[in-house]
């Protein structure tokens, strides 16, 4: 169980390493055909070893604990909140996303303060809670509320925390460096397991006591001082606190370079150097952008989003933000979705013929690529026209139209083949194919190879409705 064993070992785990410690009875109780198949899934993090019932018996207890240790992520997974609404942060196995999958997408918290009016408070909580954007079948959401004590008044903080907890089930981050204020906040929600922000070099003892007393995860803050940060982690561990979150400080103007360095160093030390002492989730506070003097709040919101997006890429597991503008949060949440996509799974849909509505022999035939995002967008846009149609999904190896054409993955040959294989010729009387505007370059060749007439459609599929109206008689 030493640090040395896990050093760099996470990536090199093979199914054999796991198999050796399994009961090897091929009992199939886990649902797999045999222990080796189960071991392979364990290595790929598709199942947990706990899903092997015999392993949980006393006989295999040592093996079980050994396996748990071998599979322990380089960055500890920490739970914030209680019950159903709790979220997990951290749990990272690797530094670079191509090495494996990043688990537990960066949780985004929006702040409220104990000096906001009741209306403002409710509105911000509501807005955070209801934030939603559907993007390739995923609902992009915000995860947490950060309650800040700006008054410094314990009673005010307590009342605000209580009110917020009544308004939302989202997990909370309680923010104050004053331990008596923090205690008042915790008393309002003694069982909710909020994240305590933060233990500093001045208040760590009191905050540690509170974390133990209320069984809460604790953020350890040491702005731009990794020696202090690591020392505090050691102290907190010794204190008996296991669920820590590390805050190396987020500086959005002077010190941004230091900030990116600190996040990078911490994650590398944890994932590649086997330094367990810094193997904890990282919290970023782009909200500090709002402390900079600016001509307009738009400038602060922009700077905040700018730094937040860099920290999504550079290893933050939690972000505290102030801005609630859609123009800032949309690119940020989409970026988070991108970075946390499983790089092992191609974002492609099955090629072939799709029907939209109940098309007949005169219905239009359109063509698109099998890149998931392109496909879903086009499908949705055709659906919204209310007109039945056929859609040929060409295997472009999961590339979008423009890059598929540029990279010769979407060619006249693949399109002609797709028309043939789709058997759409048996379904419609006409021979007219509508292709995306971005594939205009290959329209002539498609006509030659397929003997279909090609109509070059709009540059963006949002123009399909108008296109069909004007051009499809």
């Amino acid at each position: 169980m030493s640090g040395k064993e896990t050093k760099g070992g996470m990536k090199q785990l093979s199914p054999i390493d796991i198999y050796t410690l399994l009961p090897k009875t091929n009992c199939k109780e886990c649902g797999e055909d045999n222990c080796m198949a189960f071991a392979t899934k364990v290595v790929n993090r598709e199942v947990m070893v706990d899903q092997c019932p015999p392993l949980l018996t006393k006989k295999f207890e040592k093996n079980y604990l050994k396996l748990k240790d071998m599979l322990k992520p380089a960055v500890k997974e920490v739970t914030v909140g209680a019950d159903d609404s709790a979220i997990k942060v951290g749990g990272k196995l690797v530094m670079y996303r191509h090495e494996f999958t990043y688990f537990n997408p960066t949780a985004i918290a929006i702040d409220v303060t104990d000096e906001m009016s009741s209306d403002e408070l409710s509105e911000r909580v509501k807005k955070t809670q209801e934030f939603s954007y559907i993007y390739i079948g995923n609902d992009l959401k915000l995860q947490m509320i950060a309650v800040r004590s700006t008054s410094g008044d314990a009673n005010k903080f307590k009342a605000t925390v209580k009110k917020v907890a009544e308004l939302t089930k989202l997990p909370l981050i309680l923010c104050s460096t004053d331990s008596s204020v923090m205690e008042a906040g915790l008393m309002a929600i003694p069982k909710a397991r909020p994240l305590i922000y933060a233990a500093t070099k001045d208040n760590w003892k009191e905050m540690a006591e509170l974390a133990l007393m209320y069984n809460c995860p604790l953020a350890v803050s040491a702005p731009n001082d990794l020696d202090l940060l690591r020392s505090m982690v050691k102290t907190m561990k010794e204190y008996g606190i296991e669920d820590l979150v590390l805050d190396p400080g987020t500086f959005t103007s002077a010190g941004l370079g230091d900030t990116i360095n600190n996040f990078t160093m911490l994650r590398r030390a944890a994932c590649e150097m086997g330094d367990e002492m810094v193997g904890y989730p990282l919290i970023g506070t782009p909200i500090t952008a709002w402390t900079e003097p600016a001509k307009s709040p738009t400038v602060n919101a922009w700077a905040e989003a700018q730094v937040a997006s860099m920290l999504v890429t550079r290893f933050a597991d939690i972000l505290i933000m102030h801005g609630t503008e859609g123009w800032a949060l949309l690119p940020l949440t989409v970026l988070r979705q991108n970075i946390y996509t499983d790089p092992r799974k191609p974002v492609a849909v099955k090629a072939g013929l799709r029907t939209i509505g109940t098309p007949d022999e005169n219905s239009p035939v359109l063509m698109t690529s099998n890149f998931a995002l392109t496909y879903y967008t086009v499908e949705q846009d055709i659906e919204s026209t209310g007109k039945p149609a056929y859609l040929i999904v060409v295997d472009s190896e999961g590339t979008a139209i423009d890059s598929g054409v540029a990279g010769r993955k979407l060619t006249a040959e693949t399109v002609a083949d797709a028309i043939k294989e789709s058997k759409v010729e048996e379904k419609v009387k006409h021979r007219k194919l509508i292709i995306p505007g971005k594939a205009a370059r290959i329209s002539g060749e498609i006509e030659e190879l397929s003997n279909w007439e090609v109509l070059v459609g709009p540059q963006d599929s949002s123009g399909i409705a108008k296109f069909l109206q004007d051009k499809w008689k």
Partner: protein
Amino acid sequence: MPERAEKDSEIKLPPELLDLFTGLNDLELEDVDIEVDELEFAYQPGFLPAIKRMVAAKARPTSLLDAPFELPIQKYPGQIVEVTLGATKGQGGTRGRSITIGGEKSPAFYTFENPTPNSPIISLDVFDQKVPIPKAVRTNFNDAIEDPVSWAKFAVDKFGAQMITLHLVSIDPLNPKPSTPAEAAKTVEDVLQAVDVPLVVGGCGDPEKDLAVFEKVTAAAEGERLLISTVTLDMDIEKSAKLIKKHGHVALAFSPMDLNQARELNRRLLEYLPKEQIIMDTTTAALGYGLDYAYTIMERARLAGLMGDPELQQPMSSGTTNAWAAREAWKKMDPEWGARELRGPLWEAVTGLTLLLAGVDLFMMLHPAAVRTLRNTVKRLTEKRGTADAAKFAEWVSAKF
């Protein structure tokens, strides 16, 4: 259930339990005299949390323990090539200054290992004919975008462009009246006259027409060290490379998000061109529309180059303007998503920032606000370490804004 077990298992069971039982005699376990093995045996889920608290009860430090952080420094056998764009009079051209990119010895902005040798550069897009440009961008340039010369001048004078990318889209054979190679070369000369920053010259994507145009352009701009954008695997690579070498320019090697193709293209170019005359572009996809692939391919290319792969050691370029292919960047959306005048440029900025962290050295961009954001970020990321004002940091917790 699985979760609890996972937490419990992280306790270093035997030694800590041993510590725990020495001298602990006021709890339910008071009279236990157990061997380690028995204890392990006795472990039941649900039992450990209680022990955990007892561990805590035992040794609470009264002062901070010392545990300094060791810088996680790594060594890399490879280094990214330095490439200079634009030539001054002394260097055989007419540019006011030349710009060098690349030369990295560490991943992007790992300045705890090595300083960033050359700051990444942003080049502003100029098109030689009317193209559909998002409204949010157009309003910044007014009438200047009517012709490439005034557009280039505006970008340099008003927005301080360090470089200009002149896209010769008018040469596209798909145009009703495509311009000829000679006409295109004239446009390049006009822009070179109008501004003195280094220039990227881009074709239309048709491999044959581009080569015909590059033949005229490279000769007309002899010695200017233009970046010729782009050379692809389906072009006559030998001919392209020889032209670029003969007239003293730099090749932009473009591959479609595929490291093997990027390697192959670099390998073939390196047969004819010195490595100091090649930059690579592994394709930029927009935020939300494949940026994850673009990012990871670039990050992998950079790491491979640093680890010693000689075919991936060229500086990287990104057509960040592709960010505008995302409909969320330009479309009018429901009011909750804010004005596209802000959403659009931020979309481009976030696309650029993400690739900046993957290691891109040269950005071709469109919106002035996105350009400014990238430029400021580069400045911040390359300034000397230790500029953070740590004492002020915690102010945000109680600040009113």
